């Protein structure tokens, strides 16, 4: 195997944070591919530029996604990365693994690829980094015959992702992992066969803390919430105070709605004016608990800034029950997709289409009534549309 001098990358082996350079070097002991990755990366560091070509057309037969083509622009100099495709393996919901099951994937990856991975990619898949084209079909057969499948890519449903939810969090208002798994299985066809104008992402969070960043990076953000009161355990409140917490400053004064008061060691909440933001619950988890009806808010449209600016998801359905078999939700999803697919130009995400076509068009198409929870404030201008039915009805 060729030995590369890597004085620049070697600098990144120093320091307390785990070093990706050490990882590449570990893989390079066994793999020519990882070794040439190291060589090419050192050249990138020297020249301050990447040496990868645009993704090519590669994949497994019948699927339109799950593999992202990657070719070096310097294949003669670094033949080991001439092909260096990405293979996305759909993670189990919540990213828990039984060690033996994960070892199966690792063994296959050492045989068929570079031995380098991302645990995990941004969307949530396990990412196998660096595969040759001719290894794709046999690797796919090995992986699927052991009960695993590819994730999504391209103009398709992307691998749904969720927070840890009920598995290990007292704040989860919905079973995020179950819903994530349900959607992943129900929509396998949409995930593997790109049929849409562009990508579509689901992310499911159990509460408004949103540990999966659904509100910023999912076309459909599902965020757990509740309708009842926050139950207060006054004895536990006293313990927090005794433990050094300044309940007035840290809890009451930081409440965005001013719905809390604290006197005589007793914490009171005006639940009708609580916006369920999770600040107090997250800081006093032993003392405060959401009670009553549980469900989710559905928000639509977030994306990164390419190209006319980033969007956060917008509240569309303030509250929906979220229990198996999730029919009410998936029927809504079908309507959302139909409207988007009918109205989008190529590479237009759903949030952008809503901006172009108007929120009313979207709400009518999916059968959701206008509700004050959908906006921060009503419009300021006097220019609004009237439809015939508005004139004749009571609206």
């Amino acid at each position, binding site marked *: 195997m060729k030995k590369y001098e890597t004085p620049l990358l070697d600098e990144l082996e120093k320091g307390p944070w785990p070093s990706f350079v050490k990882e590449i070097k570990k893989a390079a002991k066994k793999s020519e591919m990882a070794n040439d990755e190291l060589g090419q990366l050192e050249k990138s560091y020297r020249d301050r*530029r*990447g040496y990868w070509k645009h993704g090519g057309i590669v994949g497994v037969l019948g699927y339109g996604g799950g593999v992202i083509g990657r070719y070096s622009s310097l294949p003669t100099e670094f033949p080991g990365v001439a092909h260096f495709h990405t293979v996305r393996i759909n993670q189990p919901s919540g990213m828990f693994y039984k060690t033996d099951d994960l070892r199966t994937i690792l063994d296959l990856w050492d045989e068929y690829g570079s031995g380098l991975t991302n645990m995990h990619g941004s969307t949530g898949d396990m990412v196998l980094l660096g595969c040759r084209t001719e290894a794709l079909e046999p690797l796919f057969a090995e992986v699927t015959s052991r009960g695993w499948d590819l994730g999504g890519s391209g103009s398709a449903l992307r691998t749904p992702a969720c927070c840890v939810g009920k*598995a290990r969090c007292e704040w989860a208002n919905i079973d995020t992992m179950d819903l994530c798994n349900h959607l992943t299985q129900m929509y396998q066809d949409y995930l593997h066969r790109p049929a849409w104008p562009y990508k579509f992402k689901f992310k499911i969070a159990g509460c408004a803390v949103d540990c999966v960043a659904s509100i910023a990076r999912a076309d459909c953000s599902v965020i757990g919430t509740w309708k009842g009161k926050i139950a207060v355990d006054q004895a536990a409140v006293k313990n927090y105070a005794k433990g050094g917490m300044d309940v007035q400053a840290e809890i009451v004064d930081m409440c965005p709605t001013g719905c809390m008061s604290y006197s005589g060691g007793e914490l009171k909440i005006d639940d009708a004016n609580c916006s369920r933001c999770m600040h107090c619950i997250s800081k006093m988890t032993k003392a405060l608990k959401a009670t009553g009806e549980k469900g989710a808010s559905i928000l639509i449209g977030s994306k990164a800034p390419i190209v006319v600016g980033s969007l956060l998801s917008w509240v569309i359905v303030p509250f929906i029950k979220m229990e198996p078999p999730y029919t009410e939700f998936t029927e809504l999803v079908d309507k959302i997709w139909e409207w988007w697919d009918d109205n989008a130009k190529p590479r237009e995400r759903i949030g952008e289409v809503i901006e172009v076509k108007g929120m009313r068009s979207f709400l009518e198409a999916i059968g959701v009534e206008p509700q004050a929870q959908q906006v921060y404030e009503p419009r300021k201008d006097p220019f609004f549309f009237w439809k015939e039915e508005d004139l004749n009805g009571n609206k």
Partner: protein
Amino acid sequence: MAWLTEQEAKAKRKTDIGPPHYSKMLPPVIAKNYGKWKYHEVMTPGSMVHVADSGDKVYTVRVASPRLLSTESIRAMLDIADKYCDGYIRWTTRNNVEFMTTKEENVAQIKKAAQDAGFPAGGIGSGISNMVHTQGWVHCHSACTDASGLVKAIMDEVFPYFNEKTLPAKTRLALACCVNMCGAVHCSDIAVVAIHRKVPVIDHDLVKNMCEIPTTISACPTRAISPDPAKKSIKINADKCMYCGNCFTVCPPINIHNPEQDGVAIVVGGKIGSLRKGPSFSKLAIPYIKNNPPRWPEVVEAVKNILDTYAKGAKKHERLGEWIDRIGWEAFFRETGIPFTYQHIDDFTFARDTFRTSAAFKW
């Protein structure tokens, strides 16, 4: 192990089966108490305990990861999980690794074993967790900086906030190696995003063969691209181009990479959670710092400066963006000593909402 032959692969392959069901992957204590957790406590920045209604406890040790992992290192982690965690392990949405055990006495041993393998514990509570990032020069055609290297350099510097010290509130760092922002870093407390500064260079012969001209023209958000019929290609109005690179994405022969001029911007004050002030985008703090591999000292210093100024000025539980909201952006620039430039004033889609319409402001 030998590769499957074509026939074997055809016989074995399945489609549309999806991932394994999560229930097969859960540690017994998690499966038993699923949906019945009562509360949790952060013990140290690297460990916490969750207590169930049943009284069961699960201790979690969270450890750092560079995200880019060799199979060898993952196996080392799995061995630790076999020894202390009944053969189960978990990854978090920010790419940390979690070891869960029902025995408190295992916590210290897991920490030590992980540290010995090169993966220190930390990242829980009011501090810095792992830095979400993209592929960079390691694996992306679109990258105009490296991701892993910058993250390594920054995390080395702020490491005490990962494994021992606390900040006023949790502080989420992220990095995107181009403005496509895979991983959506645009709502982070401090994010580094790589940018271009020069108009792309067009290879007209290749454009003619490789690109759909109408698609390329419509890809431009500022309408800077128009047809060039003589060359059967396109031309770019330099005055209108803001270097987003979307044309390069749809038409590779429009080369926007420029190693001399590419670099990074730093944006601050975004958040995801609805707690208190609600989710918000990160906003521009520093428009440009030159790429300076292998350790980008100027970027590291800039991040450190913002972080230190925040740590000094913010109240308890106040996220970076909430602190800036309270003191005002003009005070943010004053306190951090970061110069305010033309690039800071928005002239794109959100501009109108950002101009000050009040006579009240600080010097």
